[in-house]
């Protein structure tokens, strides 16, 4: 479901460079775009600056050079038009699951009734109705992830940033959540910028994979994944086209790693 290319992109990162220490860039000469409703994945070895690109987009980090345009406007402060889900557990431990999910709406001064309604809808979309009153400490890893995803979606951002969100989960839970994520993306038409170092995850989820690597990190390759919006992870694994994509990604990833050494 990739948007047409002549439309202005939702996100345009142009020629950015970032450094944390005085003498070395972690990311340089990096440009990329995300179209509205597009699912792109940043794939690459750890430490190549993938998460840095998410932080630039969220506005929690400023580039040393280059520009970030979101919906045509430069990102200069915190970008409240995105949802952000990280690997970490960022639930507020003293709030129930329902209160955590509804938090963005409360902070955005949305009415109580609307909040209740949206929270209920999202909890049921993720199969969490029964857990509404539980505290984060009582939730399993998968339930917490679903809750964090619901919290990031509840204010209907146009872009969802996900930083290795499923890394800490077991394989089965992971594939279940990947399927749920695809479903949510298809239903809401939200754009996603997803970070992973897992090749199969990248191929399974994305419309387009951007391979990042090297030191300092930069875009090594862009691979379009034309597998359509409706994907069945179980059968896709044995699909020839999917295997070809896997091979192409693998090659790019080797190049990305090679430049790291």
């Amino acid at each position, binding site marked *: 479901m990739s948007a047409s290319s002549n439309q202005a992109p939702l996100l345009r990162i142009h020629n950015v460079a970032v450094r944390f220490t005085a003498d070395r860039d972690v990311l340089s000469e990096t440009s990329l775009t995300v179209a509205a409703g597009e699912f792109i994945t940043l794939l690459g070895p750890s430490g190549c600056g993938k998460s840095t690109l998410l932080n630039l987009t969220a506005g*929690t980090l400023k580039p040393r050079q280059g520009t970030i345009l979101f919906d045509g406007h430069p990102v200069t402060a915190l970008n409240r038009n995105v949802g952000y889900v990280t690997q970490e557990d960022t639930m507020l431990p003293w709030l129930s699951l329902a209160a955590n999910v509804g938090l963005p709406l409360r902070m955005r001064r949305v009415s109580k009734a609307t909040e209740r309604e949206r929270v209920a809808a999202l909890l049921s979309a993720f199969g969490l109705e029964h857990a509404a009153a539980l505290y984060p400490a*009582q939730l399993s890893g998968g339930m917490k992830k679903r809750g964090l995803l619901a919290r990031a979606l509840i204010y209907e951002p146009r872009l969802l940033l996900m930083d290795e969100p499923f890394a800490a989960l077991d394989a089965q839970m992971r594939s279940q959540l990947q399927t749920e994520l695809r479903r949510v993306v298809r239903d809401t038409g939200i754009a996603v910028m997803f970070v992973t170092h897992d090749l199969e995850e990248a191929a399974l989820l994305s419309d387009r994979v951007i391979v990042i690597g090297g030191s300092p990190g930069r875009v090594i390759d862009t691979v379009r994944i034309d597998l359509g919006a409706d994907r069945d992870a179980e059968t896709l694994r044995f699909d020839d086209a999917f295997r070809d994509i896997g091979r192409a990604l693998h090659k790019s990833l080797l190049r990305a790693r090679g430049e790291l050494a």
Partner: protein
Amino acid sequence: MTTETQPSRNPSRRWRILAGRVAVLIVILVVWQLTAGNLIKTFYLPRPVQVLGELTEWIQDGSLFGHMLATLVPAAKGFVIATILALLLGYGLAMTNTLADILEPYITAIYGVPIIALVPLLILWCGIGQELAVAVAALASFFLMFYNAYFGIREVSQSLIDQVAIAGGSRWDIAMRVRLPSALVWLVAGMKVAVPHSLVGVVVAEFLTGSRGLGFLLASNANQFNAAGTFAAVFVLASISFLIDRVLAMLTRRPLMWKEATRH
């Protein structure tokens, strides 16, 4: 998160513990009753019945309640003042690292000064009335509450704050919905130590200057070489600090329920 053993989960164990506690009390009382007047003169160690006699007398003439009130009210006032100041200063310093670094050696130095060394100065400033008791109580609990507030507010992970901010949180939201609740957990832990400290502060003030209160009761009985009265006053203080601890545990159970949640 730690899981402590919960006695309430096992009823037979709970009864055993209660029985054990009663047994300890009985043994102490029996040994005490046998020793006092036989091995040790009652001038030094009064018999339990004598202590009980003093207590009953104080209860009957109504003086005990007055003394308790005279101690508890300034202790509570001092504690509340200390908590408010600790939260304000703790928040201020936790948010401005440079200021915290500048003030750190001074705060550490003042924290180390024994309260009793400051009492003469406080007498100079506040006189010897209830204000003195309030001031000593506040001083005695301030630092404990301050350190807990400071670390509780400071130790919130940056990624949590970023996420709440991106989700639409203003600075006020982050202060009230993230930093303050996080600090409360630490403050509640601090209360368990700080509240008895403010009580001790008041008793010290009364001991030195008071004309009312449990500290005064203790000092006046000791000064008259009334061992039974002194023991009775100590017993009242011990009972009060025990009761306060239990009341605090009950009051904080609800706000800390989310921490307990992990055990079920």
